[in-house]
């Protein structure tokens, strides 16, 4: 039995703007709104906040989400300020950096914020995301081959996974269905119509082996959280969502024999470090909020975070274990696929809602340890948190 560690920090404020498919205002303005909502939710004033960590969308220019966000949000008392750029792992990384700053005394109340507006009037989601994914490093040969959109990079990973483990796209469909079952219970989720495996299989391929139903559902919106020390959290009007462990894993993008960046990712390392810090094993995890821009990543993450054997995640998901009522609830708000795609902020927001016991019909009862993850790039950047409801004083 490992020694369970006391909490390192807590999320005490959560701010979420409306999530829309139409365009109302720019990302920075959504961020300002989310920051204000989070500070209020935490029972704080703007003048209390001494840290601001900005999670810029990889789709946005730095000028769209600059350090000056401090001024836009009316925060003039900061001892910590940075733009964290680690692609889809950024939001979890902002919370990790906030926790480290709080632990070392550099800051005490840190706001972490993400906002994005991929849908802008005449620009469709497909167009916004139709950039080439840099898989081959400096070679840059992707575009000459018509290798456009991140979907393709994850389709490469999916095909490799299915071939290595001799599985079919039914495993991917099982993930889409599990997410949809949770979304049916979530008023915030965007895709809530029941989904069957027959409907999934009838849907055309977009980039085989992925269908539209395997891809995240983009929205415009902003999400912010307030991270504080454990003592400070006791004054919070909301139940604190504690953080016990944190880890990162970046296994690189090595395209040669002996490496499989598609399916042997840094998630394993991120999980091992986070579990050890929290004093737990993978078997202690009660629920997961995975970053799931594509269905395939949930299968791979279930395995690499030690929750399923290699190649067994599809069966595990199909058996209902990750769905409502299952023994390991996963992406309990519908995730990115059926809920809302606000990159790493989606799993963080759902984690806080669940840990506060404010999830209504989709509330998970036992939540001693929740795994919350982010990943980015072609899945080579990973960050993880272990969260829970108790302070666990030592």
């Amino acid at each position, binding site marked *: 039995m490992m020694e369970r560690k006391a909490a390192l920090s807590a999320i005490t404020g959560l701010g979420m703007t409306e999530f829309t498919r139409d365009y109302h205002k720019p990302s920075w303005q959504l961020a300002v709104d989310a920051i204000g909502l989070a500070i209020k939710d935490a029972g704080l004033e703007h003048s209390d906040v001494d840290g601001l960590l900005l999670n810029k969308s990889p789709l946005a220019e730095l000028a769209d989400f600059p350090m000056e966000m401090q001024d836009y949000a009316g925060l003039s008392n900061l001892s910590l300020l940075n733009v964290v750029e680690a692609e889809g792992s950024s939001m979890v990384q902002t919370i990790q950096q906030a926790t480290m700053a709080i632990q070392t005394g550099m800051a005490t109340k840190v706001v972490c914020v993400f906002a994005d507006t991929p849908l802008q009037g*005449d620009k*469709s989601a*497909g*167009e916004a995301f*139709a950039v080439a994914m840099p*898989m*081959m*490093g*400096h*070679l*840059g*040969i*992707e*575009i*000459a*081959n*018509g*290798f*456009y*959109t991140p979907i*393709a990079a994850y*389709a*490469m*990973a999916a*095909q*490799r996974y299915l*071939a*290595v483990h001799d599985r079919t796209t039914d495993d991917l469909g099982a993930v889409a269905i599990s997410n949809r079952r949770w979304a049916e219970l979530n008023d915030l989720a965007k895709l809530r119509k029941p989904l069957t495996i027959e409907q999934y299989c009838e849907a*055309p*391929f*977009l*980039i*085989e*082996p*992925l269908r539209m139903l395997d891809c995240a559902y983009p929205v415009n919106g902003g999400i912010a959280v307030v991270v504080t020390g454990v003592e400070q959290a006791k004054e919070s009007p909301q139940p604190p969502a504690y953080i016990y462990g944190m880890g990162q894993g970046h296994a*690189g993008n*090595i*395209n*040669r*024999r*002996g490496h499989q960046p*598609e399916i042997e990712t840094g998630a394993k390392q991120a999980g091992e470090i986070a579990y050890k810090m929290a004093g737990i094993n993978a078997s202690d995890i009660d629920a997961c909020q995975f970053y799931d821009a594509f269905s395939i990543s949930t299968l791979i993450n279930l395995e690499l975070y030690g929750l399923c054997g290699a190649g067994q995640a599809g069966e595990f998901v199909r058996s209902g274990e990750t769905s409502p009522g299952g023994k390991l609830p996963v992406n309990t708000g519908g995730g990115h696929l059926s809920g809302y795609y606000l990159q790493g902020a989606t799993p963080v927001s759902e984690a806080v809602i669940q840990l506060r016991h404010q999830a209504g019909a989709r509330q998970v009862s036992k939540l001693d340890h929740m795994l919350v993850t982010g990943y980015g790039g072609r899945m080579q950047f990973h960050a993880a948190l272990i969260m829970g409801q108790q302070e666990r004083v030592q």
Partner: protein
Amino acid sequence: MKFAEQSVVWPEIKEVARPFYEGMQQHKIMIQQCSNCSTHLPPAQLVCDHCGCDDLTWIEADGSGEIYTYVVYHRSFHPAFNDQVPYIVALVELKEGPRLMGQLKLKEGQAYKVGSTVVTRFQKIDKNNELLYFQLEDGDG
């Protein structure tokens, strides 16, 4: 979709990758090799990921390999590829170890899967540029 009309897409070639593109013009597949540990590296690296050595030399690869993974585009995401849908983009693990990306062009009725053996071919895609593609080993050139 409102992309600019464009018939051929060609990357802006980085200096570190130039030997690879010059090789393609001569129908050669150029990869790199570490002069310290002899590891074969995919183009275009500055440092060997195996031993950290920065003395890498360009060598010609055999050009044959196996399909490591692939995708099939059932929809075009760029007008230059509208006429090609459906098309296959494969990652091929060359005999020497590095993996390269290229389209897999099939003859009618050919079956393929992860692990199928392929060879490299080249096609002139505009007046200045040759681009590699893959064919199943038993396909004629």
